[in-house]
């Protein structure tokens, strides 16, 4: 390669580093300047500079630090250029006072503060996820819009409105005090799990799995865990995501169809992630303050513990769902419980439970009914249920799997 000629791999490398560091850079600038738009613009400008410099000189030893320093300079330049009295006044303060304006408690991670800001109860729940993905995951507005089936302009407007509310209503950049932590932590965990699920079974688009989203959710989960090591639900959510992610390599077949748990090649599961997940579940059991994510993680631990599908301890799974049902009496938990009941008490008992649930139009309900009807040799009804399930999902791998199952029904 002659000097001056760009290495084609370097742009991909810069892109990877930038995505990885984006949340940290934005979170640091947001804390220092208290202005999300400024933080985002400065981070974007730092990327432009990085592309130019790094292509020429190579990636520096500490790319994250380099991006933060460059973005901070850009932000200060921008503030200096702005002529309003308020901005000048603020700049003067920032030049001399770099200390946070309020005590941050035991936890001072900028990204964690930004997650709690994005998940503030004064913001609409659907906006919390989008904003977290934008500011911490570094996803583009177009990518977020696609993940949520919304037009790009509409998503841009929602994000702008949310950032304006944070600025003008003065939603603080902080991890809430202990007494506010529980309800807000619930919202934060829900957002991280939503991001993970969107990556694990994409609701739209061409890809069945979005590894970028599951990776981001895992990274956020690990960050939360580092910062709140004694919160069992944090450990539970991380364990749940690890044990689910571990199965990803076996989850889609060579033909692009989804492979259900019972048929997955267990040798393809990521043993490291399974072990890490199991260790966290054991830790939760020792704390003995079960919550929704811990119970879901425990259920996944039972599945990943079995060397073969036939070895699954289904009565343990039913028992865990019974405990989960106390916390979450919704029909989706009841549906998942019924799948385990089918293994313990047979398909007839399970079908009676499934039929009681008000979930018509939900693809998993139709798919579960179809499988139970198949086992009861009610082929015509099963066929109609597969059709209903296929109509109710947009995920290509899931559609492929359901079509194949329908095709193998006895006439």
């Amino acid at each position, binding site marked *: 390669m002659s000097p001056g000629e760009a290495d084609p791999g370097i742009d991909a490398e810069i892109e990877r580093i930038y995505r990885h560091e984006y949340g940290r850079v934005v979170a640091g600038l947001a804390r220092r300047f208290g202005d999300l738009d400024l933080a985002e613009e400065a981070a974007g400008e730092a990327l432009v500079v990085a592309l130019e410099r790094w292509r020429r000189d190579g990636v520096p030893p500490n790319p994250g630090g380099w991006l933060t320093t460059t973005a901070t300079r850009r932000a200060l330049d921008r503030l200096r250029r702005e002529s309003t*009295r*308020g901005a000048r006044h603020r700049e003067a303060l920032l030049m001399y006072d770099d200390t946070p304006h309020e005590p941050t408690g035991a936890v001072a991670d900028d990204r964690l503060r930004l997650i709690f800001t994005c998940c*503030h109860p*004064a913001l609409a729940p659907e906006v919390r996820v989008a904003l977290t993905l934008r500011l911490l995951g570094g996803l583009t507005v177009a990518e977020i819009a696609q993940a949520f089936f919304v037009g790009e302009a509409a998503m841009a407007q929602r994000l702008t409105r949310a950032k304006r509310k944070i600025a*003008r*209503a*003065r*939603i*603080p950049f902080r991890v809430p005090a202990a007494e*506010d932590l529980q309800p807000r932590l619930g919202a934060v965990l829900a957002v991280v799990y939503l991001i993970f699920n969107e990556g694990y079974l994409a609701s739209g688009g061409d890809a069945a799995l979005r590894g970028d989203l599951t990776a981001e959710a895992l990274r956020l989960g690990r960050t939360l865990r580092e910062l709140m090591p004694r919160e069992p639900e944090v450990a539970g959510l991380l364990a749940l995501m690890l044990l689910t992610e571990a199965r990803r390599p076996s989850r889609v077949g060579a033909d692009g169809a989804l492979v259900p748990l019972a048929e997955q090649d267990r040798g393809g599961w990521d043993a490291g992630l399974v072990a890490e997940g199991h260790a966290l579940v054991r830790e939760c059991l020792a704390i003995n303050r079960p919550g929704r994510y811990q119970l879901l993680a425990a259920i996944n631990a039972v599945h990943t513990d079995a060397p073969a599908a036939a070895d699954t301890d289904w009565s343990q799974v039913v028992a865990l769902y019974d405990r989960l049902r106390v916390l979450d009496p919704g029909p989706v938990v009841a549906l998942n419980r019924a799948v385990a009941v089918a293994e313990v008490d047979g398909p007839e008992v399970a079908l009676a439970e499934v039929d009681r649930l008000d979930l018509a139009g939900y693809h998993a309900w139709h798919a579960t009914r179809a499988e139970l009807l198949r086992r009861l040799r009610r082929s015509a009804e099963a066929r109609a249920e597969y059709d209903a399930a296929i109509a109710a999902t947009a995920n290509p791998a899931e559609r492929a799997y359901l079509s194949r199952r329908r095709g193998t029904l006895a006439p």
Partner: protein
Amino acid sequence: MTQYLLSVHHGADEDPYAEDPEAARPVFEAVDRFNQRLRAEGAWVFAGGLEPIDTTTTVDATGGEPVLTDGPFAEAKEWLGGFWVIEAPDLDAALRWAAEGSRACQGRVQVRPFQSE
């Protein structure tokens, strides 16, 4: 510090200051105590309860000569019962005051920041 408008909104079928003033007394006392707390903690700017909605007059001078109309500018089931203007460091602090105010006056409280500068 940011100033916030905490406005109290009542629905069509709720009127804590109904005909019976004796029944409303605990509410007034609770609001008095809340106001004292706002003053003691330096959050108080201004507050007031409003006369019933049927005392409203709407003035429209956008077309030149003022046009006066008896009644509110929009017919709505909800009505504004009163408000506080407070000073708070951030939205979390304003929301805590709002929760306390809502409990005191037995009405839903809307929180809205004033424009800065």
